[in-house]
């Protein structure tokens, strides 16, 4: 079953290139310049440019425009975070931080061309017990 997320981007074409080239997303549709749908497994992302035309990118009733950014993000699980980071860095991708070790695994924040974040996450092995963790580690 698909689950959907809307990301506000400045340039839908640039976003399609980024997500398909670097993160294994597939283009589902790009029916008009300000909108596209991409997918990776059951994750579907609606890439939406701010627009006066209504729809997902419409301004608020106050006139406030939507914009990319913020800290909320999709969270993609990878098998080998260090290798993924090395590959993306050599491809010129930007990261917002260095990898950190959390309770449930290691994570890093990648930036898309509009400045939206994507979290890459490698879960701990079942044997790993982070300091202060409970009996179950689950992506803190």
């Amino acid at each position, binding site marked *: *079953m*698909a*689950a*959907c*997320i*809307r*990301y*506000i981007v400045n340039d839908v074409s640039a976003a399609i290139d980024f997500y398909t080239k670097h993160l294994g997303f597939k283009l589902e549709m790009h*029916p*008009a310049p300000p*909108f596209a749908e991409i997918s990776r*497994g*059951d*994750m579907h992302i*609606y890439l939406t440019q701010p627009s006066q*035309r*209504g*729809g*997902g990118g*419409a301004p*608020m*009733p106050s006139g406030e425009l*939507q*914009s*990319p*950014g*913020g*800290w*909320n*993000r*999709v*969270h*993609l*699980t990878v098998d080998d975070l260090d290798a993924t980071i090395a590959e993306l860095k050599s491809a010129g991708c930007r990261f*917002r*931080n*260095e990898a*950190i*070790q*959390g*309770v*449930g695994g290691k*994570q890093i924040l990648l930036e898309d061309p509009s400045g*939206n974040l994507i*979290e890459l*996450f490698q879960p701990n092995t079942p044997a790993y017990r982070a300091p202060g963790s*409970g009996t*179950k580690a*689950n*992506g*803190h």
Partner: protein
Amino acid sequence: MTSETVNVRYMVEDVEAAVAWYTGHLGFTVISKYIPAFADVGRGSLRLLLSGPTSSAGRPMSDGERPAPGGWNRIHLIVDDLAAEVARLRAAGVRFRNEIVTGPGGSQVLLVDPSGNLVELFQPDGRH
């Protein structure tokens, strides 16, 4: 085809309040809770990770900037009857960011969670 989990992380100010809101209003169920740092809730294949200021994801960046709730990116939940959902949620005291807007694919509205994060409810064209 079996469903796989789709993970999205939201920063929240108060994990307990967020869990109550997502389970109470939007039909999420609790997967795990590590109050006050973290909880995760699920709805269909969506797993929403709710990370508080004391979680690993809440740690400041190297330049000192702290992750915070908000922004325009959001989960997008499909509903059968948007007008009925809006009426139900308004009666429950849920805050909205805008009025229903209609676009090429359907109608949508933005809810605001207790930390100021957005949730989009969407009714595709052809339903009702």
